[in-house]
């Protein structure tokens, strides 16, 4: 089963290779991995999409925790979470296709972020299904280039906590 694992790590050189090396060395799957610094510049946040049965996921979480540069590991599948991925798609657009491309962009609430007489560069973000869908629709026009960020995700605030917070805000 697919799992999204959120990993907070030290923001120093070599950490990415330690994490990547762990996955390749132990034969764990990585479907996607994204990294960027957090608000605290001494730390980075990784979102890793992986898959495996319960035993493998347990090992992945434990092995990540064991890395000295890893500060925190959360298997997001254990809670509710929201996730997004962004894709940037460059499509060939001949005269007739240009309108069709714009219609698709509209339907998916995507954006055209660059345009030449023969291409549109489209940015879309959402869950993987949405991205797959827009790719499928754009494919007949001719996709010249496609890059995807891989998924990023955060846990939802627990409902109770959220409610308490709402009350507090209401009181103030």
């Amino acid at each position, binding site marked *: 089963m697919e799992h999204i694992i959120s990993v907070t*790590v*030290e923001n120093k050189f*070599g950490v990415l*290779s*330690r994490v990547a*090396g762990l996955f390749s*060395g132990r034969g764990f799957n990585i479907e996607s991995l994204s990294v960027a610094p957090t608000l605290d510049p001494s730390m980075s946040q990784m979102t890793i999409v992986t898959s495996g049965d319960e*035993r493998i996921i*347990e*090992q992945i979480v*434990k*092995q990540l*925790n*064991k*890395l*000295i*540069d*890893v*500060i925190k590991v959360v298997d997001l599948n254990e809670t509710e979470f929201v996730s997004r991925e962004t894709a940037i798609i460059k499509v060939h657009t001949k005269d007739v296709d240009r309108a069709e491309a714009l219609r698709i962009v509209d339907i998916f609430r995507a954006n055209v972020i660059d345009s030449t007489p023969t291409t549109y560069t489209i940015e879309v973000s959402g869950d993987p299904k949405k991205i797959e869908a827009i790719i499928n629709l754009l494919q007949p026009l001719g996709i010249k280039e496609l890059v995807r960020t891989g998924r990023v995700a955060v846990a939802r605030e627990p409902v109770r906590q959220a409610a308490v917070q709402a009350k507090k805000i209401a009181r103030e």
Partner: protein
Amino acid sequence: MKLTGAEIFIECLKREGVKTVFALPGGVVLKIFDTLHQQKDVEVILTRHEQGAGHMAEGYAKATGKAGVCLVTSGPGMTNVITALADAYMDSVPVVCFSGQVPTNLIGNDAFQEADNIGLSRPCTKYNFLVKDVNDLAATIKEAFYIATTGRPGPVLVDIPKDVSQNVAEFVYPKSVSIRGYNPTVDGNKWQIKQAAEAIMKAKKPILYVGGGVVFSGASQELLELAEMTQIPVDMTLMGLGVFPGEHPLSLGMLGMHGTYEANMAMHYSDLVIAIGARFDDRVTGKVSEFCPHAKVIHVDIDPTSIRKNIHVDIPIVGDCKTVLRELNQILRATVNGEQKDLRKPWWDQIREWQRAHPLTYNQDNDGPIKPQQVVKRLYELTKDRDPIVATDVGQHQMWAAQYFKLARPNRWLTSGGLGTMGFGFPAAMGAQAAFRDRLVLCIAGDGSIQMNMQEMATAVISKLPVKIIILNNGFHGMVRQWQDLFYNGRYASSNLGTTPDFVKLADAYGAVGLRVKKVGDLDAILKEALATDKPVIVDVPTYPYENCYPMIPAGGCNHEMILEDPPELKMKQSGGAKVTPEDKDTVLTA
């Protein structure tokens, strides 16, 4: 006070209580060697190969329980020490390895003798550091020792570029270390420990399965108390040998692939496995799906990844063995009474029956070829009063040493289990000898393995490390030959070593003492002569080449289905039967 990087390095070693460094110089570490040369607090043992330096650091660490330290140069120095680091990583040995690196401004330029030391060592160290600024050196070394020796121990590499050892900085040694991503759990969960105690009270056929973790944790006393109080039999892994007295009536010896019959049967038929500091290696579990089919499993380990890695665990306890056992014993002391012992009598009756049915055996004829088991047995009997440290290489001789050398205490057993590194034994023995100059240190070696680090005999002679090497010389990669006889139709593909070199002359060439046992009747006299020598000694003991090590659970086999002796067709072959090739016969005759 401002010091050079090299001086800071030495100050840090002193603060960590390091007395000995196993090292081999090269261009980028010359400053460090030059500085070491001008002081007396830290002794440098110059090895002949960096692999030797690494294993010596391991032997030192295993025997003392403290970190062993080695120092190598960049490029080939680093690549040479990798095997020892991988070995230390697999067996959780605290080693701090310092490597030289090209100057910081040249890193990444394919400079002379440059290697990516961090990249090379990443998969075989617990952690590694590249020190880019001399101002970070002291704090880094402090962290390196801390990481190597706490939690699940392991090797740590500190890579020091040439300019960092030359530059100067204010020397401040941090008093403590805090690493936010590294906080090993020492105390076990109290609730889980209570569950464990209850399971122990209820069990009718419990078994203690103890390993290297109990050695690292220094918990043999607590283990002894637990076993004696509850009368639970004790199985030891290869890495755990010595942690429980081998001659104790509750000891069933080693379990696993070449473990004793009773140790494996007790495991298979137990209703409660109490695993302490052991990691359910495949040499122990055999076929996982049929491992301990009737048992609940308690697992105490400081490393959460060891738990539920290979097998299901009912009561996991993450923590240090000593701390957890103390707590467990405290609960049990209040509840255990004579009744549990009565409850377990049928279990012990069963175990004694297994012991009687298939004890470890071999056949030594008075005028026949020398049997390897006989050599280990006599060596054990002749030295046990001297509380020796015993190192082994890898192969059949290692397994016979494990079976017949019944150690009474921990930190006396130096062997390569996880990586199974031939060539480990001799340098490891030297490392232990360097730590304990007055103790008796033995190395039980194979004729194949010893040749993998033979060059260190020069180190042993010059640095006065009087290790006693006993070579069980069967003319073969015996362990390989055994598998070929059992599973490859007796085709000896590249397992026949022949009878060179002449180890007696070789010892002599190095300035050590060489002795040979020509017949079994001379065994005791020659061993005694070796033990009375104050130099390094090689005792070459030509042994029966076709002896096989039993019991044996074939890889992936089931633990209660052991091979206990040579199958009939092998016996025929050995008694002069059809398949022995002329080449093989040669070995029999000369051996």
